[in-house]
């Protein structure tokens, strides 16, 4: 048992805290709205190699793991950094693992995939992941879909990599105005320009794995967001007076902040346990990621909304920063769907029998014939 970071991890956290604190001030966050993408910051994030730190070194990545990525996600969350680091990291990891598997198996190399993977890992292309399977010819509300060059999406039992020739970090397109100021967009599934990454159970498995990695990293980011919101709350109640005293002396405010502090500690432990479980390839890694995501989402939103409330009327104004946290606390998790449905699925994964687990999409007829 060792619940501490290594010295390297501590150094990484300190560096990234400083980096995001400087590069993603709330002024910068506001300036990036409504699109929610800061191209210059993205360039810097790419130059630091953050989107590929978990990709193996022989594929051009940093050779680190999900604990390091979770650290980056936490720091991103604290500063609400308007860059799709989590989506890109997860998509790069997915591409790298498929490309690696292809090159190591007998002759099934896919030069196109290898080239796209190399360019994504190098930061020349921005890849993202659709959080829900495509319906018909459309992947709906894809995170970073407005700024991504590449979109990984499951359709039926095929895992596709879409190219978006007219969209990218320099040429945002299709963005829809939304609560969290996220560069969300619908992405057309144009099979002519799509690369089939995997088919059948392997495709579903790879997609699920990527989703759970997105969940754990988003959980870490939401923990970061929530911890910063708590800090804003503590600072505010220690400045604001009512009835002649600091409102931070009121027991009802103290107790609610204390509850949020405990839940945030829980969210942090869950997020890093989930990251560690991914790095260790444990069978519990996926449920651990879902737990980290759900608990962090609830905790971040409760913290941000209560702290907004403690601001009184000022919390309702756009001028105070807490609204930036409040909106994202809801939106960052909601893009993955209703959390209550996710809790129900989780119960089946943790306690259900094998056949009671969430049903896999039915294989396509061609696959069945093959």
């Amino acid at each position, binding site marked *: *048992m*060792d619940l501490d970071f290594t010295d390297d991890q501590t150094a990484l956290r300190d560096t990234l805290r400083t980096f995001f604190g400087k590069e993603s001030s709330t002024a910068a966050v506001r300036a990036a709205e409504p699109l929610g993408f800061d191209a210059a910051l993205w360039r810097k994030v790419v130059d630091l190699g953050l989107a590929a730190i978990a990709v193996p070194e022989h594929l051009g990545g940093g050779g680190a793991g999900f604990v390091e990525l979770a650290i980056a996600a936490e720091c991103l969350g604290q500063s609400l950094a308007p860059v799709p680091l989590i989506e890109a990291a997860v998509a790069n990891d997915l591409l790298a693992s498929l490309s690696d598997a292809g090159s190591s198996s007998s002759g099934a190399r896919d030069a196109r995939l290898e080239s796209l993977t190399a360019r994504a890992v190098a930061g020349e292309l921005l890849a993202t992941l659709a959080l829900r399977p495509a319906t018909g010819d459309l992947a709906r509300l894809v995170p970073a879909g407005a700024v991504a060059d590449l979109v990984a999406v499951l359709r039926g039992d095929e895992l596709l990599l879409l190219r978006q020739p007219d969209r990218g970090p320099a040429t945002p397109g299709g963005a829809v105005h939304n609560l969290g100021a996220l560069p969300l967009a619908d992405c057309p599934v144009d099979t002519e320009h799509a690369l089939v990454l995997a088919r059948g159970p392997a495709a579903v498995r790879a997609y699920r794995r990527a989703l759970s990695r997105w969940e754990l990293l988003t959980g870490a980011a939401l923990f970061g967001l929530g911890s910063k919101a708590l800090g804003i709350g503590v600072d505010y109640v220690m400045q604001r007076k009512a009835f002649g005293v600091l409102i931070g002396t009121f027991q009802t405010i103290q107790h609610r902040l204390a509850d949020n502090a405990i839940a945030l500690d829980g969210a942090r432990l869950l997020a890093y346990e989930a990251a560690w479980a991914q790095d260790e390839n444990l069978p519990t890694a996926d449920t651990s990621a879902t737990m980290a995501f759900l608990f962090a989402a609830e905790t971040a939103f409760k913290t941000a909304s209560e702290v907004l409330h403690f601001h009184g009327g000022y919390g309702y104004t756009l001028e105070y920063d807490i609204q930036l946290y409040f909106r994202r606390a809801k939106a960052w998790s909601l893009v993955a769907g209703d959390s209550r449905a996710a809790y129900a699925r989780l119960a089946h994964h943790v306690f259900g029998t094998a056949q009671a687990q969430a049903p896999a999409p039915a294989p396509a007829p061609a696959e069945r014939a093959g």
Partner: protein
Amino acid sequence: MDFREFDELASHREAACAWVEAHVRPEWVEEQRRSGTHQTAELHTLLARDGILAADWAPEYGGSGVDPGFARAVFDELGRRGLACDGWSTTSMVLRTIEHVGTEEQKREYLPAALRGDRLIALGYSEPDSGSDVAAAKTTAVRDGDEWVINGQKMFTSTAQLCSHVFVLARTDPNVPKHKGLSMFLVPTDSAGYDIQPIHTLGGQRTNATFYADVRVPDSARLGGVDGGWGVMHVALVHERSASSPGSDGGSLVRDLAAWARTARRPDGTTVLDDPLAAERIGRMAVDEEVTRLLALRNRWRAQKGDLPGVEGSMWKLFATEAAQRHSSNILDILGPEGVLAPDAAGAPAGGRFEEGFRAAVVGTIYGGTSEILREIIAERHLGLPRNR
């Protein structure tokens, strides 16, 4: 990072299990439940005979030389089988306090006898008018030559019906701030003027009110300095917090419920787990349980590193007990009308353990620091907010 916990008791578990198998009678569990007394005299005698009580003590005070790991594994195994040793838990807290602050005579008087199984000590802190504000105790101890005369009443003196002594917090100086005029006494329960009345609780446990009318004890019954009782009690509290058994997850009502929900069927033939309303709540409870486990893991990690028990202990206690209350209530809801069936009712799900658990969970947020006191500790020490009382 590494979230795997090495089971330091692993090498003792088989032997501990064999000991429990050979000595424990299954009816003791039922007897504890029926009587509400969470201590079994026969078991205590056996634990003493085989040196398990005295495992972690120096030989000059009666230490047995039995491996402390084995002893902890035995208590762990007893807990798994639903057998409580509450009287011994309070006793060992007081024994550790005697070890730290007692005189040599006191150590020789109390430690060997207790480790032989001949002494049990109950805690006499709370009173009718003071619980969380324990320093407001009104029970008095007045000096009379070489003796002290104690008058007052203590509440929730659990297992005192089996105890040889009560560890009494009493006011020895009414003219100074409340924390500075308290002393601690070991009061024999066979003293003239001592009386006990049972108090029955919602969870089925029996506790007591104990009464002290001109009870005389020698000055040698005083533990720690005159008016130094607050500090002495804090030594005992540290041992209360560190007493939480490592690795024991206390059983999981949620896991038991999920096992039930997987097979129990609704009138239309679907399982309870198929019902998304039930599944959602079960999923939520699973997350809460994992958070509870991780907060406890962090406490053990801190202890392993040699850190003092701090605000993290309060965080765990608050989260764990409030989650347990939410869960026990949700579980009854998921059971539906049968959730109301008590352990002795025919057809009670899981033999009524859920209904019993619902009643018992109530006390979690009250004893050992109420949720409100713990929130205050966290607000002050963790968030740096001002003291408000």
